[in-house]
Each structure stands twice: as C-alpha cells, then as structure tokens.
C-alpha cells in the first residue's frame, strides 16, 4: 500500500502539495477501511463459527434460526449490540471507562497492518513487522487495565490485574519462540520470512520443519499465544464462574462488543503470525512451482493463507470447548516453569543449529543426502 501511495503521488507530481497530501490521506483511509471491513466480516464469521464448533463438540445444534443454517446470526447479534442501552456506571471513571474499548480495538486492529496476505497484498510491508505486532499487542494489556480500573468494580479490577499478569508473563515465551524462528530468515519483515520458506514443494521448507528446535518453538508459541488472547483454558481474566466477566463486567452494548471483537481480532493475528513464521505463510503447496497467471497465483496465495489461519483458529476453538480452565497458579507454573525454559532451550538450540549448519534445514540435509 505504501508502494501504491508512492506510485500515485509520483504520477501527480505536477499537482500541488495539497492535492498530493489529500490523495495520500484518502488512499490511507481507504486501505484502512478495506482492512477494517475484512476484519469485521471475519469477526462476524468467527463468532458464528465459534458457536457452531461449540455446538458440534457439545452435541448441540448451535445457531440455526436467522437465515439459512443460522448464517445471519452474527448480523442479528451486531444489530442487537448496537441498539442496546449504553450503561456507564455512576461511580466509574468516565474518561478511562469510555476510552479503554477504543484503545483495545484500535490496538488489536492495528496488528492486522503488517501481515502479508499474498506476494502483493499487504497494507504495509514493515521492516520490523514481527516486532511491531508484538509491540502493538502489548498496548492491549494497558488498555484492559484502563477499562478495569475505570469500571470501579472489584470483579473488573481482579480481571484486569489477572489479564495483565498473564499477558506480560506469556509475552516472554512468545517472543523467545518467535526469535528462534526469526534467526533463520534473519529478517523481521513478514514477506521476507515467507519468501525464505519457499521451495520444498511449498511444505518442507516451512520453518516448523526446519529443525527440531523450531518445531518445538511452534508449539510453545501456539500455547502461549492462546494464553495471550485470553482464551480457555487460559481465560482466568474473564472466568465467569469466579469473577463474573472479568475486566469487561461493566461494559454493555457496543462498548462490550469492542472488547469482544478485539479478542477475535487477536485470535486472527496470532494465528496469522504462526502461519507466517512457522507454516510457510502464503506459499502454495505442491502446485506453487507451476507457472500461472499472476491473478490466479495471488488468489491461490490469499486462499492458502486464510485456510492456514482458519485452521489454527479452529484448533483454538476446539481447545476452548474441550479443556477446562487452569487455576491461576497452574497458569503461572505453565508459563514460568515449563514454557519459558523450553523457549530458552529452543532459542539456544536453534542458534547453534544455524551456526553449525549455516541455516540449512532438515529438508535440505535429507535432500542433499538423497542426491549424493
């Protein structure tokens, strides 16, 4: 998208600076709107999918009244949330209470920006893409604390404290596992990382298969990522049997919906990061090496990317409706006594592997043996 801005503005070189400014701002706004529209549509579909998956796993039916197969249920829910009464508790800190949902949603939405959806489809190709997503996700924890404090409710405050403790703790295994993967492509740019994983039939050069350490890292990352987005079995910040609804207890209507959508947005982002870093991103398996028109390749790449992301999201839903919730101490034990040491081990192991074998993965070694 930055490339597009450069292209358009340079073709408007004869126009005044004001025109160029306006055109640039319009392009930025339009691209933001496109991403927002896609994200909201995905979030609607995800709520529907979540309820259908839950129904499936618990031998229920799930939504089936609104539209064919209940497909329009999320539209009905959206309308319902929009027209619900907007309650602000009398003793709430109005500024913090009102501000928090916006920051949560903005931060979660901003994490969609550096993702690379196909070779040419991305909003902004950032040099520090992976780090940017980690950083912007950490804003969410601050905003959760803001809403929790602003609600002036003990359940909210407990939930907020738990959320922050959990997110900050699990950031460590997450960043360490990402680091173990990133040292191979030696880049934080999402597109570079995906391009590095090309070849090997579009499957075998994925970083998850590169060496045993990145293989472990993928699982450490995925477990920690589920905790990072506060989903069961790590949902103690909003454990309804203990603290009502945690940090969003006092929120109603659209303000609640912002928190809700942010959670689903975060699910997409962490799955997209896992896909990009470990599962080859938009590399089309098997037929990716064939020559084909650019548009077809782009469509296939976007389809492959979304298929991988949705598969990971499905796994998250599956885990949510299968496993019981962890206790607070179990949660912290898992992070500090298991995931963090394993992540450190992976990082050291992957570094040694890269140094000794000059970045060649298991696939390259096996292929080299077969050829000789």
């Amino acid at each position, binding site marked *: 998208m*930055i490339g597009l*801005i*450069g292209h358009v*503005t*340079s073709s408007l*070189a004869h126009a005044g*600076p*004001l025109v*160029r*400014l306006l055109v*640039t*701002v319009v392009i930025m706004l339009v691209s933001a709107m496109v991403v927002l529209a896609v994200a909201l549509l995905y979030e609607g579909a995800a709520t529907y999918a979540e309820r259908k998956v839950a129904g499936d796993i618990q031998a229920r039916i799930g939504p089936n009244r609104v539209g064919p197969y209940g497909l329009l249920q999320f539209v009905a829910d959206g309308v319902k949330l929009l027209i619900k009464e907007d309650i602000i508790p009398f003793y709430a*800190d109005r*500024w*913090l209470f009102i*501000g928090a949902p916006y*920051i949560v949603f903005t931060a979660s939405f901003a994490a969609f920006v550096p993702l690379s959806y196909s070779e040419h489809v991305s909003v902004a190709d*950032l*040099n*520090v893409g992976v*780090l*940017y997503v*980690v*950083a*912007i996700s*950490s*804003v969410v*924890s*601050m905003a959760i*604390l*803001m809403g929790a*404090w602003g609600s002036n409710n003990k359940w909210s405050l407990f939930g907020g404290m738990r959320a*922050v403790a959990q997110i*900050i703790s699990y*950031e460590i295994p997450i960043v360490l596992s990402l680091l173990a993967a990133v040292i191979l492509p*030696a880049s*934080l740019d999402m597109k570079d990382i995906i391009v590095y994983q090309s070849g090997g039939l579009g499957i075998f050069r994925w970083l998850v298969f590169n060496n045993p350490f990145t293989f472990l890292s993928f699982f450490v990352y995925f477990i920690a990522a589920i905790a990072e987005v506060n989903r069961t079995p790590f949902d103690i910040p909003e454990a309804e049997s203990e603290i009502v609804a945690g940090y969003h207890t006092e929120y109603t209507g659209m303000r609640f919906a912002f928190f809700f959508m942010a959670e689903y947005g975060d699910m997409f982002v962490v799955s997209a990061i896992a896909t990009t870093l470990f599962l080859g991103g938009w590399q089309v398996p098997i037929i990716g090496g064939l020559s084909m028109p650019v548009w077809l390749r782009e469509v296939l790449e976007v389809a492959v990317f979304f298929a991988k992301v949705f598969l990971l999201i499905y796994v998250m839903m599956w885990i949510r409706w299968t496993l019981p919730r962890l*206790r607070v*101490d179990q949660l912290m034990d898992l992070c500090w006594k298991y995931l963090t040491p394993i992540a450190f081990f992976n990082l050291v192991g992957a570094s040694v592997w890269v140094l000794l074998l000059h970045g060649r993965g298991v696939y390259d070694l096996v292929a080299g043996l077969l050829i000789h």
Partner: protein
Amino acid sequence: MSMDASAVHALFFYFFAAMTIVSALLVVLLRNIVRSAFSLFFTLFGVAGVYILLGADFVGVAQVLIYIGGVMILIVFGVMLTHNSYSVDMFNRLGTLVMGTVSAIVTFTIVYYSIRQVPWLLSGYKANVPTTQPIGVQLLTNYLLPFELASVLLVFAMVGAAYLIRSEVRPGKERAGGSERKDA
C-alpha cells in the same frame, strides 16, 4: 515515497508532536493520579510516532514494546497500589510550585542550549531503510561492554526482586503458602 511524502510527513509530525505535548501537560496538570498515569500512555505513544517519522523504525517499535508494554504497566500498577489512589489530590504547595518552576526553567535551558550546540546531521526522511541489523551489529561489536553491563544490571534487578518477594523457608516446616494452595 521520498520527497513526495514531505507533506504527509509534516502532517504526521505535527499530529504526534501535539499528542506528545498535550498528553505530557495532562500528566502533570491532571489532579487525578490514575488519569495522569494513563495519559502518559499517549505521551510515550507520540514519542514512538516521532521516532518512526525519523526513520528509526526499530527504536520506535521498541519504545512501544518496552515503555507502553512494560514501564507504563509498572507505573499504573504502582499508582493503583498507592494508598487511597482514588482520592489522592495532587495539590501543589507554594514551596513545591516554586521549586518545580525553577527546576523546569533550568532543565529547559540546559536542553535548549545543548540542542543549539549539537551539529545535527540533517539526513532527511528515509523510510524503508532497515535499521534492525545495523543496531544489532553495533550492539555486539562497538557497544558490547555497555550492552553487557546493562544486561548484568537487569539480572541484578531480577534477582533482587525475586529475593525480596521470596517466601520464608523455615527448617522442618512447609513453605509458607504451600498448604493454602492445596486447599484452594
């Protein structure tokens, strides 16, 4: 983007500059200590935006990660644990007001003159120039000693924190808290 982006660049610079200054003023002027702490978020975010406009993408993102994700949370927790933080009134007595004004003027003068003294390298706007790798190389070559010293300092802080919050272990007794945990 190069030259054509200058207008957009200026627009974003003024946006982030205004955000930084207004929220920094709110930090010191608001009477509610919790709101003060939270408006620091916008100050730190605005500074990160300025870093990114200067082409220092890694520093900008690290600013968000460390200051907003870490230091900011720590400050907010500290404020929340302050006794009676709901009704703490940030009232400035005359003495502190005078002292504050004097120290503000002195600091401003020092900063102003040092800015005027430094021969700034005006390299202009450079987007999309990767900075991560040069920073890493510099940290592990020219600046290895300061880098290692900083990490040793952090290890000291971590060990110290763990030592301070450790539960007392008496010979022949259960760890404090151990029995509670089984009941819970």
